[in-house]
């Protein structure tokens, strides 16, 4: 399974939740599959999805699901200790670990070799870390929403991208409708 197939499968779960989505093709895919005002698309700033999601989860009670990538976690590794030491029970970090920089042409990352993101998350102090196969992502994500505890999910999948259009929505529009969705009852 590749990222877009996973997103397709979990779209019904994501639909009603606040979602912060990783830069590039992941956001393009989610936007094309099921655009929602509750989705915050990152149009740039590789690496910060997990941090934005954590800040959001720490200040309000709704669940926050971050869809991140292995390359983006590797470029902002400091995020893992911050997540571990500032636990937000409503925070779910779903890392689509395709072992590559998908958006830039599937160049391999180190997670396809010796590096384990689950191991790194545990070593950083994250207590609920689940590594899963792509096929099980939906179930694992549902469990995490029930768990009421900060969860890091490392979803191992194949690399590959669906051909989707670039997001042309204005960033301030994306942000504004997202904030309204956050504030809604």
């Amino acid at each position, binding site marked *: 399974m590749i990222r877009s197939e996973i997103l397709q499968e979990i779209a019904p779960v994501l639909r009603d939740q606040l979602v912060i989505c990783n830069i590039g093709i992941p956001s393009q895919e989610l936007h094309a599959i099921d655009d929602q005002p509750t989705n915050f698309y990152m149009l*740039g*700033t590789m690496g910060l999805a997990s*941090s*934005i999601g954590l*800040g*959001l989860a720490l*200040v309000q009670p709704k669940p926050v699901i971050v869809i991140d990538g292995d390359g983006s976690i590797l470029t*902002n590794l400091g995020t893992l200790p911050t997540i571990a030491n500032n636990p937000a029970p409503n925070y779910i970090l779903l890392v689509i670990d395709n072992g590559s920089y998908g958006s830039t042409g599937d160049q391999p990352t180190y997670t396809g070799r010796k590096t384990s993101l689950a191991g790194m998350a545990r070593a950083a102090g994250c207590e609920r870390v689940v590594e899963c196969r792509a096929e099980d992502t939906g179930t694992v994500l549902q469990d995490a929403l029930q768990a009421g505890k900060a969860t890091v999910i490392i979803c191992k999948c194949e690399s590959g991208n669906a051909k989707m259009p670039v997001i042309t929505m204005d960033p301030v529009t994306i942000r504004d409708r997202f904030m309204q969705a956050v504030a809604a009852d």
Partner: protein
Amino acid sequence: MNIHQRITGDLVAAGIGFVTTVPCKQLAGVIEEVDRHPEILHVPSNKEDEGMGLCAGAWMGGRRSAIIMQNTALGVTINTLATLIQFYRMPLPMLISYRGEPGEPVACQVEMAVHTKALLAQLLIPAYHFHRQEDVEELPKILDYTFMCSKPVAILTDASFWGGY
């Protein structure tokens, strides 16, 4: 009330309830106050771009946020300032220790000091330079201004402001 308590009080009075920090020797006192204040959620970050991500999220969650960092951090946050804070038009007060100005004992600090105002100007980031302790009187207005215009705003605080090293 000392300067650290005063600055922290001004942050809270401006409605700021989320602060992230990466330490600088000059910022030690204010970071301690921020950490102690019951109305501020203090989340230390490991790198300042990470911190700006946290601030962006907190602000979108309805909590005004701020970052406290050293001027050297401008070197690691330019992409984040341009593509996250400015692109999505978010307010971000940045309380910055302005290392490398007269009185500085560490030569290497001067290397980023000479770029500090130029980088802020290049990014069209409003910047205010606190040199004397009474300059702190402007802080409440600068904070209001930041949230009024939804921009990142820099408050540079040099060694003279903090009373030397």
